[in-house]
């Protein structure tokens, strides 16, 4: 009863299909958006924007990409970082090779390139399933890093394959400042999350879930399996590609192919396990967790364990904590933080009653 639903009726199908059916939800959402788009760029300092908010947004985008593929369509992938790399390098090349290419268009084209690669590596998914499919995504992971290092053309013949972001200009405005890069990332993330949310709630999303739950049964009721799976690979890779481009351009500024190695893929997989598989909101929660936990841990140990533990050991400790958390979540709450939030929300609805 912390918020009341009584008296809010939907009198048309359009109203019933809205994102937020309660005025309370709309207000909360609007407040969040004003906070994110207006207040944060005004008051946020460079450290917060650079080291926390931008990587958080980019990683939640990457989490969203993998979540569409693994959480909704049920195809497990260990190659997410490869598609991020393709997005980053493609965007870089579109910017470099075509004179006067607007940044947003090359971002979009970079995403499309990643989507194309996703379709190629997703092709075997029709014939091979489950763990065997891991091989296809791992092949993508190793092959892409190899070819980006091997073939100098992709990084404009830089000796170590490093690409450096050009000055970021959108609609004639230079947005290379932290706040500008933050706003770019936020806007792109907003659009992609909006798209993903609509896809997932639409027909394609339903098809993905049917394939995830049992693809043989889905085929029997007439769902085109190949098309559905390939679309999952394409859209997921598109989002991952854009996330990769933002990672390179808006967050780091310079990246090399090995910045997108297997451990990055694991990190993204951990985001969706912790955040919640098959949940849009979960991508945000998981990314926030992944970004904040190491900072929290190093601050905690600096305060309490100062001098006891050396930094190298701290990294091992961090690994153990991450691994243990993964196992803990899988055992106790397989649907992740998103599910926990849902429980809290449900409690708030019926409070002070239990049910």
């Amino acid at each position, binding site marked *: 009863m912390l918020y009341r639903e009584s008296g809010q009726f939907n009198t048309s199908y359009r109203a019933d299909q809205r994102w937020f059916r309660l005025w309370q939800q709309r207000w909360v959402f609007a407040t969040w958006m004003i906070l994110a788009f207006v207040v944060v760029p005004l008051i946020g300092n460079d450290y917060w924007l650079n080291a926390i908010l931008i990587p958080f947004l980019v990683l939640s985008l990457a989490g969203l990409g993998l979540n569409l593929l693994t959480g909704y369509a049920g195809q497990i992938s260990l190659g997410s970082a490869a598609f991020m790399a393709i997005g980053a390098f493609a965007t870089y090349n579109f910017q470099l090779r075509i004179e006067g290419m607007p940044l947003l268009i090359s971002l979009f084209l970079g995403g499309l390139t990643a989507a194309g690669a996703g379709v190629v590596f997703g092709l075997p998914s029709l014939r*091979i399933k489950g763990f065997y499919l891991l091989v296809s995504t791992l*092949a993508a992971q190793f092959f892409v890093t190899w070819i980006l290092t091997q073939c100098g053309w992709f990084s404009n013949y830089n000796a170590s394959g490093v690409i450096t972001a050009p000055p970021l200009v959108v609609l004639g405005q230079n947005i290379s400042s932290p706040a500008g890069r933050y706003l770019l990332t936020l806007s792109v993330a907003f659009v992609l999350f909006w798209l993903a949310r609509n896809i997932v709630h639409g027909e394609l999303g339903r098809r993905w879930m049917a394939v995830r739950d049992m693809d043989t049964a889905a085929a029997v009721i007439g769902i085109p399996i190949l098309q559905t799976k390939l679309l999952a690979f394409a859209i997921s890779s598109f989002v991952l590609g854009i996330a990769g481009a933002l990672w390179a351009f808006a967050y780091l500024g310079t990246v090399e192919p090995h910045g997108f190695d297997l451990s990055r893929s694991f990190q993204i997989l951990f985001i969706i396990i912790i955040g919640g598989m098959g949940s849009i909101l979960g991508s945000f929660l998981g990314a926030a967790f992944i970004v904040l936990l190491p900072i929290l841990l190093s601050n905690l140990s600096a305060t309490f364990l100062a001098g006891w533990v050396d930094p190298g050991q701290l990294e*091992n400790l961090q*690994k*153990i904590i991450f691994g243990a958390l993964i196992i803990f979540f899988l055992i106790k709450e397989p649907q992740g933080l998103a599910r926990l939030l849902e429980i809290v929300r449900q409690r708030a609805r019926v409070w002070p009653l239990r049910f």
Partner: protein
Amino acid sequence: MDFFLEVLTGGLLAGVMYSLVAIGFVLIYKASGVFNFAQGAMVLFAALTFVSLWEHGIPFWGAFVMTLLSMLALAWGVERVVLRPLVNRPPITLFMATLGLSYVIEGLAQLLWGSQVHGLELGISDEPLEVGGMLVSQFDLFAAGVAGVLVLILSLLFNKTRIGITLRAVADDQLAALAVGIRLERIWMIVWAVAGFVGLVAGLLWGARLGVQFSLSLVVLKALPVLIIGGFTSVGGAIVGGLIIGASEKLAEIYLGPLIGGGIENWFPYVLALLFLLVRPSGIFGERAIERV
């Protein structure tokens, strides 16, 4: 032609080393349906524990037995903490749990024993031997011998002992095994302990080859395509798959590498495995999955 044969033999023998890691996978997959990503971490843990004990002045066999005991303790812990609460969950959940487990084990091993590189000298000279006009690494021959003995022991264990028969019953049908009174938890623990033993052997050989360091846990990535080609459920398949991967990888590096640029060893096994899968989706020796609605 001689050169070709030499590369081929070298590749085949290197493949045996991959098989050693893959066997640990197969054991666990057969008995519990768990795709154990942590096998590489177990290899690292075993090798690091053994080397550190040895460097502290404990004699070879003492260190060996103590490491074996610690692998047993690890198996017990894994069964209690990870596997038991996850009974009846989808295989993908169990896989991700082992992913988390590999992080825990790697972190633990390095927390306990430090992360510097240890040399491991097993007292086998690595001088090449001349066999029929070809140069063959003595160490590789030794590794192949060890793998052979290991497979022999495992097949004896599986076929002649009571434990082995219950293991096979569990692998065949978990529900039926439960119904005749086999204790699943104990079987899982035994299987993980045996996989730990295989991991120790693999860790010693790989450690002697590469030095005992973090990259040992990455051999798991080489074992994956081996499993794909051989099939997840067959020890023999793991050996054959290892041989195929080892040989083709070396041949590709020598003959294909110069054409498209070097360093293709990293991804070539995966592409090969992928091609295999398109022809035979369950590997050479794997069981064909039958799907029902």
